[in-house]
C-alpha cells in the first residue's frame, strides 16, 4: 500500500506557531498544580514546557510515587510538598516504625534538585541526618515546614540553623519533640537576618531566650513568631517590642504562676500589644490567667485568627469578653469552655467567621463537664453567614439541630462532628442520626470533608452516596450495619479521595464489589472492621497498582488462612510498586506467608 507522506507543519491548522518562550512566560503566571496538570494535557509541546518550568510539586502520599519518577518528568523543582502517614496516625492508630521517611526523598533530591528552596512536610519521620543533609546541600534553601512530624532532635535543628543562610521560614507545628533540647537556636549565626517566620510552639523544652531575643532583634522581616509553652510571660513584652511588625504571634505560658497581678508586667504587656499594629493572628495562651487578658484587647478588633484551645484556665465569661471584641474574626480555635453562651456571643459579634474548631477540655469525662451542647453550634450556624468549616466536639446531638445547621449553612465545605461517646443516638428522639447527616450532605452541595459520629445505620451511607458528590474526605467510626453501607459510599461518592474507617461492621463484599473505585482514590484505611486475609489477597491480585498493606501489630496474622481477620488495612494507589521500607509487622501479598509467619513467630507457630 502506498502511504502518502503528508507535509506536516508544526501545528495542525495554521502556519503560525506560537513561540515557546512566550508560552513559557505565560506559564509562570499559572502556578496552581491543577491548572498545570490541565495545561500539560493540551499538547506535547505544552507538556514539555510544563516539565521544565513547573517549580512546585505536591505529593499527597509519599509512597504513591518515587523520587526517580518525579525527576523523570519534572526537571527543576524548587518547592516540594509531601505527606506520609495516614491521617489516623494523629490518633495513635498507626504503630511506630510504619514508615514515611523523608530521608529517602531528600537524599535523591540533593542530586536531582540542588536548587530546592522549600520543603513542606506533613506526617513524616524526619531524622537528624535528613536535616543535616538539607542544611548542607541545598544552598538556596528558604522554607522548612514540618507539620506533625517526628524523629528529629537537637542535632538536626542545629544543622539547619547553622547552615541555611537564606532561611526565611522554620515551622515545627505539632511535631513530636521530646528529644529536642539544648541550644540549637544559638546556632543561627549573627550574620543570619533573613528570618520571616518561626513556629516553635510544639517544642516541649526550653529554648535559650537570650538567643531567641537576639535572633528576633536581627530579623527585620519577621512577621510570624510562635513561642512554645516554656516561654515565660515576663519576657513577652521585650520580645514584642523588638518585633512590632509581627502579623502572627503565639505566646508561651500566659501566666506568671502568682495569684496577684504584677502591675509592671500588666502594663508592659498592654503597651507591647498595642504597639503591634499589624497583629492579626494570636495563639498560645497556655494556662492563661484571666487577669492578664485585658492587655490583648487593643488587638482584638483587628484579629482574623484566634487560637485559645490551650487556655484551659479561661472560663466562658473570659472567653466571651475576648471574642465580643473580635469583630473581624475569621478563624477561632477554642475549648468547650466557651459553652453555649460563648458561642451565642460569637454568633452575634463575629459575622466574618469562616472556621470554627471546638475541642474537648476533658474527653474522658463520663458526663459533660461544661455546658456546651448542640445549641451552641446551631447558634453559630445562624449568626455567621460565612461559616464554611466546622470541627465540633460535644456530648449530645439531635437530628433537628443538624437539619437547622444544614438549612442555615448550605455553604459548608468541611463538617467534622465528634459526639464524644460512640453510637449515641438523637438525644431527643433516641433515633439514629442518619436523617440529620443526610440533611447536611443534601443541602451542603459543596461539602468536601465530613466526619461522622453518633448512632448511625446503613441509611446514612445511602444519603451520603446519593448526595455527597463533591465529598473528598470521609471519616467513619462506630457506624453502620453491613457491607451495604460501605457499598453506598464507594459506589456513590464520585469525588471520594480519602476514606478512613474504624470499628464498623464492613467486610469484604463491598470492597470486592468496588475494586476499580479504589484506584480513583488516594487511600483507604480500615481498622477493626470485618476484613479477611482472603479479600486482601484478591484485591492485591486484581489491582496491581494498589498497595494493599495489612498492619499486624499483635503478630496475630496467619496469611495462610484466608478467613483470618485483618485488624488494620491501609491501601493506596501507587505507580512506584510495593515499598521497600516496610517494617516486619506489615504483610503484603508479595511476601511468602510461611516466611512471614516465621519472621514474627521465630519459635514456630
Amino acid at each position, binding site marked *: 500500500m502506498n502511504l502518502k507522506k503528508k507535509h506536516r507543519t508544526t501545528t495542525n491548522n495554521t502556519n503560525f506557531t506560537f513561540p515557546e518562550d512566550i508560552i513559557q512566560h505565560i506559564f509562570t503566571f499559572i502556578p496552581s498544580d491543577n491548572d498545570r496538570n490541565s495545561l500539560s494535557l493540551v499538547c506535547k509541546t505544552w507538556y514539555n514546557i510544563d516539565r521544565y518550568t513547573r517549580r512546585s510539586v505536591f505529593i499527597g502520599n509519599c509512597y504513591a510515587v518515587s523520587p526517580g519518577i518525579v525527576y523523570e518528568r519534572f526537571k527543576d523543582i524548587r518547592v516540594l510538598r509531601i505527606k506520609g502517614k495516614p491521617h489516623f496516625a494523629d490518633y495513635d492508630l498507626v*504503630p511506630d516504625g510504619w514508615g514515611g521517611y523523608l530521608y529517602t526523598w531528600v537524599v535523591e533530591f540533593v542530586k536531582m534538585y540542588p536548587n530546592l528552596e522549600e520543603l513542606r512536610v506533613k506526617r513524616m519521620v524526619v531524622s537528624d541526618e535528613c536535616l543535616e543533609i538539607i542544611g548542607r546541600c541545598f544552598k538556596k534553601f528558604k522554607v522548612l515546614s514540618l507539620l506533625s512530624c517526628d524523629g528529629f532532635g537537637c542535632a538536626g535543628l542545629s544543622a539547619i540553623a547553622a547552615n541555611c543562610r537564606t532561611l526565611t521560614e522554620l515551622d515545627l507545628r505539632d511535631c513530636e519533640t521530646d528529644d529536642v533540647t539544648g541550644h540549637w537556636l544559638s546556632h543561627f549565626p549573627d550574620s543570619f537576618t533573613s528570618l520571616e517566620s518561626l513556629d516553635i510552639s510544639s517544642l516541649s523544652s526550653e529554648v535559650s531566650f537570650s538567643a531567641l531575643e537576639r535572633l528576633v532583634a536581627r530579623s527585620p522581616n519577621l512577621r510570624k513568631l510562635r513561642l512554645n509553652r516554656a516561654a515565660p510571660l515576663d519576657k513577652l513584652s521585650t520580645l514584642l517590642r523588638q518585633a512590632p511588625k509581627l502579623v502572627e504571634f503565639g505566646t508561651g505560658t500566659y501566666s506568671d504562676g502568682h495569684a496577684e497581678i504584677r502591675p509592671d508586667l500588666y502594663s508592659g504587656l498592654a503597651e507591647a500589644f498595642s504597639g503591634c499594629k499589624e497583629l492579626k493572628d494570636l495563639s498560645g495562651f497556655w494556662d492563661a490567667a484571666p487577669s492578664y487578658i485585658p492587655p490583648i484587647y487593643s488587638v482584638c478588633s483587628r484579629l482574623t485568627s484566634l487560637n485559645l484551645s490551650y487556655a484551659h484556665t479561661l472560663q466562658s465569661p473570659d472567653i466571651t469578653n475576648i471574642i465580643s471584641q473580635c469583630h473581624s474574626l475569621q478563624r477561632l480555635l477554642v475549648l468547650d469552655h466557651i459553652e453555649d453562651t460563648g458561642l451565642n456571643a460569637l454568633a452575634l459579634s463575629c459575622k466574618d467567621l469562616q472556621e470554627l474548631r471546638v475541642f474537648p477540655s476533658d474527653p474522658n469525662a463520663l458526663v459533660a463537664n461544661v455546658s456546651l451542647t448542640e445549641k451552641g453550634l446551631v447558634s453559630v450556624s445562624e449568626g455567621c453567614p460565612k461559616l464554611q468549616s466546622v470541627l465540633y466536639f460535644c456530648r449530645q446531638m439531635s437530628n433537628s439541630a443538624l437539619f437547622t445547621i444544614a438549612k442555615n449553612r448550605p455553604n459548608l465545605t468541611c463538617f467534622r462532628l465528634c459526639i464524644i461517646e460512640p453510637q449515641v443516638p438523637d438525644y431527643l428522639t433516641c433515633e439514629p442520626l442518619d436523617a440529620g447527616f443526610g440533611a447536611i450532605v443534601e443541602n451542603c452541595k459543596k461539602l468536601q470533608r465530613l466526619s461522622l459520629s453518633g448512632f448511625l445505620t446503613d441509611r446514612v451511607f445511602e444519603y451520603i452516596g446519593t448526595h455527597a458528590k463533591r465529598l473528598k474526605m470521609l471519616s467513619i467510626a462506630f457506624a453502620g450495619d453491613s457491607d451495604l453501607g460501605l457499598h453506598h459510599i464507594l459506589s456513590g461518592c464520585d469525588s471520594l479521595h480519602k476514606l478512613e474507617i474504624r470499628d464498623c461492621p464492613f467486610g469484604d463484599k463491598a470492597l470486592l464489589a468496588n475494586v476499580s473505585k479504589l484506584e480513583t482514590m488516594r487511600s483507604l484505611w480500615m481498622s477493626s472492621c470485618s476484613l479477611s486475609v482472603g479479600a486482601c489477597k484478591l484485591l492485591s491480585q486484581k489491582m496491581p497498582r494498589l498497595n494493599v498493606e495489612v498492619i499486624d501489630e499483635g503478630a496475630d496474622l496467619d496469611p495462610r488462612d484466608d478467613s483470618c481477620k485483618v485488624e488494620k488495612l491501609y491501601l493506596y494507589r501507587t505507580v512506584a510498586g510495593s515499598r521497600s521500607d516496610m517494617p516486619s509487622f506489615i504483610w503484603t501479598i508479595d511476601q511468602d506467608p510461611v516466611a512471614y509467619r516465621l519472621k514474627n513467630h521465630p519459635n514456630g507457630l
Partner: protein
Amino acid sequence: MDLINFEATELRLGLPGSKDDQTETKAIPSPVNNKRSSPEMDSSVSDENDSSRSPPPTKAQVVGWPPVRSYRKNIIQAKKTETIYIKVSMDGAPYLRKVDLKLYTSYEELMKGLQGMFKCNIGLYSEKEGYKSEFAPTYEDKDGDWMLVGDVPFDMFLTSCKRLRIMKSCEVIES
C-alpha cells in the same frame, strides 16, 4: 436498595469452592463487640463478650477515641494530673506503645499491664535477685539515667519515669 438485589449484582470474587460467607450479611449488633480483645487496648478494659447494643463504657480507653491529638491530650492530662502517658519499648518488638502510668497503683499492676501488652513474662522484682524472668523493665528518669524498675517507691517512680524499656535480662548490667 435491598440486600437481595445487591447480592445478585455483586461481583463474585469468592475463592474457588468457597460458599457464600453468611457472617457479613448479618447485622452485627455492635461493631465494638466484633473485635477480638485487641492488644492496643489498655489492660483496664474489660473483656467485651456480651452482644448487647450498649456503647462501650467511656472510662475504657479505646485507642484513638475520641479523636484528639496526643499533644492536646497531654496538656489536658498534665493539667489534671490524671494520666501520665509514656512510651514503652521492648527489645525485639518492632513497635512502641504508649501507656498511662496513672492507671496503675503498684508495680505488680504495672507489670501485669506490660505483660499483657507485650505478651511477655516479667515477673516480680526482688532486691536480691532483680528480675528472674527473661525480661527486665527499665526506665529513664528525669536526669536521663536508666534505672531498673522497682528500686524506688512506686509514687516516686511515677513522678520521675520518662519512658520505659523492657530489656532482655541478660543485657542488664547492674552498677
